């Protein structure tokens, strides 16, 4: 018996170890080759300096993963997708479903949207020290999924606030009690800060130059060296589409249909000034994998402080995203995320 136990444990450990090894290798390569400056962020001993950047967000979101439906997801349906759908009875039933009012059966709880409202604030000091606070402000009764279980997670065991500060990550429950605390190896954000500063200055300069000389951003971009295989397309409404290939890790590639060897490409539609995204897509050949659409508003809390006056840069108010994913049985499904930003902005103090 003991031998059986040891054998099975060994098999399981091997599987886990393989995965962990793979992830570790990726991370070691990533981190070492990038020469990121990881420090033990026992930052209390270091002078923080003044706040250089503050990043705020207030997001309401709902996400779910649903079966493909001809009416809602027609752009994702190719012959290959259709053949995979047809291999699953439940998926087939949903394919032609019309109307939301029909009584149906939820196969997986992932089909039920979870609503979440989060407020975050990140501060980066001139020394590179970062602090952040993440609050889950979702009203308690918003998610019916919590009532579908005999023993839901009680408010006193649910993480409602996470603070990263002074080399520690601390989590607080819905009744404000500290429920978890651990040291958090912080990263000095000086390089981040310097890089952002540099590009803020550069983009301001480029905007000023753009205003001074009449050459469009598009023409300037066309003169730049483009990545291999990249394309720029100007639409009739003035919007600009950038197409380029993306590289994925072949061992862990999360996109793509089995057997397809075509490279993944992105299609990013920007406004004519090329300062914000209108639409974003990921495709493999003609197969659509991901589509995201953006809506903007005049909300001042969606504009970064460096662009508060005349420049058009702003963050979106609403983002709708649909992604083709495959469940464990290989059945294609659509992961939908809807987000509304009540606040999303960077405030610069330089």
């Amino acid at each position, binding site marked *: *018996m003991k031998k*059986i136990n040891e054998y099975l444990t060994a098999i399981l*450990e091997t599987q*886990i170890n393989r*995965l*962990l090894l793979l*992830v570790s290798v990726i*991370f070691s390569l*990533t*981190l070492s080759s990038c020469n990121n400056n990881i420090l033990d962020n026992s930052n209390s001993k270091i002078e923080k300096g003044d706040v250089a950047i503050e990043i705020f*967000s207030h997001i309401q979101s*709902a996400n779910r993963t649903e079966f493909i439906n001809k009416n809602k997801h027609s752009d994702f349906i190719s012959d290959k997708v259709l053949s995979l759908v047809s291999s699953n009875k439940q998926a087939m039933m949903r394919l032609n479903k019309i109307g939301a009012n029909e009584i*149906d*059966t939820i196969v*997986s*709880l*992932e089909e*039920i949207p*979870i*609503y979440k409202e989060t407020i*975050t604030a990140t501060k980066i000091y001139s020394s590179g020290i970062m602090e*952040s606070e993440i609050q889950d402000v979702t009203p308690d009764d*918003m*998610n*019916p*999924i919590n009532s*579908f*279980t005999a*023993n839901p997670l009680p408010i006193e*065991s649910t*993480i409602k606030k*996470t603070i990263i500060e002074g080399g520690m*990550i*601390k989590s607080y429950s819905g009744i404000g009690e500290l429920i978890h605390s651990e040291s958090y190896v912080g*990263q000095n954000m000086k390089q*981040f800060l310097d890089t952002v500063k540099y590009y*803020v200055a*550069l983009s301001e300069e480029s905007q000023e130059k753009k205003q001074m000389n009449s050459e469009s951003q598009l023409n300037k971009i066309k003169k730049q060296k483009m990545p291999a295989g990249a394309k720029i397309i100007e639409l009739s409404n003035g919007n600009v589409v*950038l197409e380029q290939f993306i590289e*994925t890790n072949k061992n*862990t*590639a*999360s996109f793509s249909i089995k057997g397809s060897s075509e490279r993944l490409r992105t299609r*990013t539609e920007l406004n004519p000034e090329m*300062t914000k995204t*209108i639409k*974003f897509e990921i495709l493999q050949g003609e197969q659509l994998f*991901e589509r*995201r*659409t953006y*809506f*903007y*508003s005049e909300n001042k809390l969606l504009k970064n402080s460096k662009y508060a006056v005349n420049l*058009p840069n702003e*963050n979106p*108010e609403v983002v709708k*995203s649909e992604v083709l994913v495959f469940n*464990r049985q290989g059945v294609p499904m659509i992961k939908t995320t*809807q987000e*509304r930003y009540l606040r999303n902005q960077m405030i610069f103090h330089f």
Partner: protein
Amino acid sequence: MNQKKYMLLCLLVLVIISSVNGQKKVVWLHGLQGDQTPSTWDMYQTHFTSTNGQVVKYASVFNSVKSAAASLTNEKINPSNQDIILVGHSMGGLVSRSMLPNNSKIKGLISAGSPNQGSNLIANAINGKVFNVFETGVSKSSVAIDKSLTAAVFCAPPVSTIAAPVALGLNAFKNTALVGLGVAKSVIGDAISVYTTITPCTQDLLPSSSYVKESQSQYINVPYLNIYGAEDYWQVVRIAGSFLNMDKVKKAENMDVSYDESCFPTMYSALSITSQIQTAHNDVYQALVYPAIVMPWIWATRELVLSARYDWDGVYRYLETDMHNNFASMVGANAYELRSYCVEEWVEDDNLPLLERVSGKIISPSQPTTGHWERVCHTSYVPVTLEHDGILTSKAVIVPESKGMKIMNVRVPHVNHQEMGNQIEMRKIFEKAYNSDQYGQIFNLLK
């Protein structure tokens, strides 16, 4: 010794002998794998003399329930031929029931967490599905990590330096959640490894087995106290905590210590770090707008950062909610119920197709968008999670109270399957069962 003293001593001996003979002996039967040494149940023997209680061992793994019962003859478990009460944990409860027809000395049964209706977890361990619960978590995390790495194209500045907070979070996640999922899978896998092999015993414990079907019609002719555990939320985390600390659980000095929350810090750590990763992605997404304005090829990278964040949203959801419901379904603790429920969906104020709205034909991108969250209601059959002890559902343990049988099903909250039998609450129940009339007729009869 004078005659008077001699007579008095004889009388005392007679009184002791008659009281011992009148006392029921408690015989404790362990569950599956409980015959391995050391066993949680070994500690019980220290509480008994040979006449008032005994922990007996039987070969559990490669025996059918009936053959295990047959091996426990009255001569073996009850050499003093007293009336006995059998107390069985998990499989031990089934063995007790099977001993009943062949031993007239059995005057009562107490079982804790016994799969009277069979165990779905064994069925899902044999078919390997139970491990999917953890593999799905690992797979979702791996996809999210992959997307983050794809997005960040870390080695190409300026993205590499701006994406630093994401890299930091990913590294921390690797050390907590991913290791935690691996440990949970390994610990649960180790604990239920015996289930993954088809043996006479595991065959008997399947819900569809002939043994389970036959036992449904068994007439239990002695008072029967049937205890089932009702664990709180995050049962898989609790059972993993108990399994992980089995070496401590088995020590007598830790008899009343609960280890079921020992894995909670790992869950909290994983969730906190996932929150940090989500925030870091948003921070990086915002910051990348500046290099993107200067180098437009970075727009796509920026979008991939947002794609990765959505995957991390999915990881958070899985760790907090879906994983626990998925594990419950492996235990068999799920049922479909017709429910009406309402969820929030973002609805644009006009009903124009989304693509037309963003194509620039209907509204220009800089025009304000109006919309609102709307509570959209549905009525569907939804999978609901029922009560369980981390290994068995309450339903799998409960024995219907048929006519003429003296059965009492008792629910004990906050106790997982593994803790049953050695935790203070359970001992209180046993003690009450044996020493008091708190639970009425059943316990009076057991006394």
